[in-house]
């Protein structure tokens, strides 16, 4: 159920002028309090595997000194991009093939230093395996403006990215924009570094 409850309900509460004793039914509003569900996430830790070397066979009478257990650094699992076939947009999104680009305060124009990133994104979008997907361009803002103004600013950022991609040859039919204003910061901080990281446009591949 998406909507937990009505915020009002009608009750039979009577409001009576004391002097005339006339009963007038008056409906009044009441309240429902809702419980907030708390989600707790647990995380499991796996013990690091230990490579134990076998003890050498005793060659002499001398009591062998037991060799200390050697720990070898665990080789990280190498994740390689799978072959194009069979992979959906969400897998590619997880790989982060398309890089975010960043904006100056209150601006929506593409910064010169961000153009190479955007052009690299466009190249990937033109070629296999990404050429079959549609692209959602997200516009984001830092927290410093009013939230409603930031909705419009995020929209302008997403649209200037869209225009740039069109100019680079991505068909407009593959492109969609959305503004999140200041509602989805990537850095929760309240300083210049955080703001710079939050003034951004992100790219999400979508199945066409």
């Amino acid at each position, binding site marked *: 159920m998406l909507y937990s409850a009505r915020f009002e309900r009608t009750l039979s*509460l009577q409001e009576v002028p004391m002097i005339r004793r006339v009963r007038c039914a008056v409906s009044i509003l009441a309240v*429902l309090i809702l419980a907030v569900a708390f989600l707790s996430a647990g995380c499991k830790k796996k013990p690091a595997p230990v490579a134990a070397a076998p003890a050498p066979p005793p060659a002499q009478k001398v009591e062998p000194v037991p060799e200390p257990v050697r720990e070898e650094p665990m080789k990280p699992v190498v994740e390689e991009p799978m072959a194009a076939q069979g992979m959906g947009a969400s897998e590619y999104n997880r790989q982060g093939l398309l890089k975010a680009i960043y904006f100056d305060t209150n601006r929506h124009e593409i910064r010169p230093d961000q153009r190479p990133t955007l052009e690299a994104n466009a190249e990937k979008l033109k070629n296999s395996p990404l050429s079959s997907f549609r692209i959602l361009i997200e516009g984001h803002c830092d927290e410093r403006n009013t939230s409603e103004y930031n909705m419009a600013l995020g929209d302008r950022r997403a649209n200037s990215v869209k225009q740039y991609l069109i100019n680079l040859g991505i068909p407009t039919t593959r492109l969609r924009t959305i503004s999140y204003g200041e509602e989805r910061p990537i850095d929760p901080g309240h300083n210049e570094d955080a703001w710079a990281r939050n003034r951004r446009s992100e790219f999400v591949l979508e199945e066409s």
Partner: protein
Amino acid sequence: MAAAAAFGWARSGGPAAQDPNQPQIGLKITGTAQRQVPIAILPFHPDATADAAARASAESIRAVIGADLTYSGLFNVLPASLYSGVTLTAAQIPFRDFAALGAEGIVRGAVSRKDSQIVVEGPLYDTKSGALISGKRYRGDGSLARHIAHSIANDITLSYTGRTGIALSRIVFVAKIGGGKEIHVMDYDGAEIRQITKNKSLNVSPAWSPDGRRLAFVSYRQGNPKLFIYNGEDGSLKDSTPPGSELCVAPDWSPDGRLIAFSSSSGGDSDIFILDVATGRSRQISFSRGSDTSPEWSPSGREIAFTSDRSGTPQIYIMDAEGANVRLMTTSGEFNDSAAWSPDGGRIVYASMFDGRFDIVVNDLAAGAMRRLTQNAANNENPRWSSDGRHIVFSSNRKGTYKILTMDADGNRQVELPTPFEATMPDWSR
């Protein structure tokens, strides 16, 4: 009406046939310099039928009425210590003693129980004459004790001012819960917080309909930000996004509740649109290059204030409701936004940036005088008026996390309404 005749209450220009639900206006406070009416609220006496629960609610009802009247700024609720020496009996009220102590009005309530309900009377008397000024009997479930108390406070305010109080008004706001933002409603005094949306998406920019029965807001629950209308009567939710609108932001109801102004954009250029709620049709009324956002109707419905950065920086403009005759209102400040018209139409309150942070500023339109109401090295945003024009609700991060606060219209008495989560974007019902 018999009571009016008996006590000789005056009513100027009233209709001949009077509504028995409308208490008579006999002690009208006039003028702008408000004098606070000294009033005593005596303990509500529980009668023989009152059980423990009814007795407990008697005390809380008295406390809520006192808090409502104090908050209104119209009354001076006399402390109980002032009349601790006066002997009170159930039978008689010593009017002369209270008049001598300075009280003009006196409330002597009673609580009883009938079946599963509580019955509450909160009669208001004039201490000089001993006359009954207002008095109704309220009956309801015990959980409605606060509601009954607010109703009695409104009756008292109506008796002295001719206008009902704001004690039954509510504040809608946006709470940050997990990664989402959900619409919540609370009483104007911060009690009874209840959650309206529960979709773990972004639900923002809530606005009350003038009748307080519906909420318009923007939700990302289907991906794109769309305009929804929530009906509090039946709990229904309607997607009211006009066809072709890509980014609906900042809805505001017209004073007659028939139209909703909002901003919407195509191709990165945000403009103001008007939605006819009944037909679902919309039309564009602003056409500037640059973002036009945050529309807000004047109380007459003839004008709309909005924010535009057509001149470079975001400033507040006013236009006719048809979109013509656009004029700039704010003449100073690098960033002005979130305009809200006072109920009498004479003032506009808004958020203005000072040294990188927002403060609340009120503009007296006739005098052309700006007055800064907040100043505390934090952000103070999203101001909205109470229906009596005496208070302003807003959000502020002055203590770190954004919370909802209210203040008097002159900036005095800035008080936080505690919420167990970050809270922003308030709107005050009528």
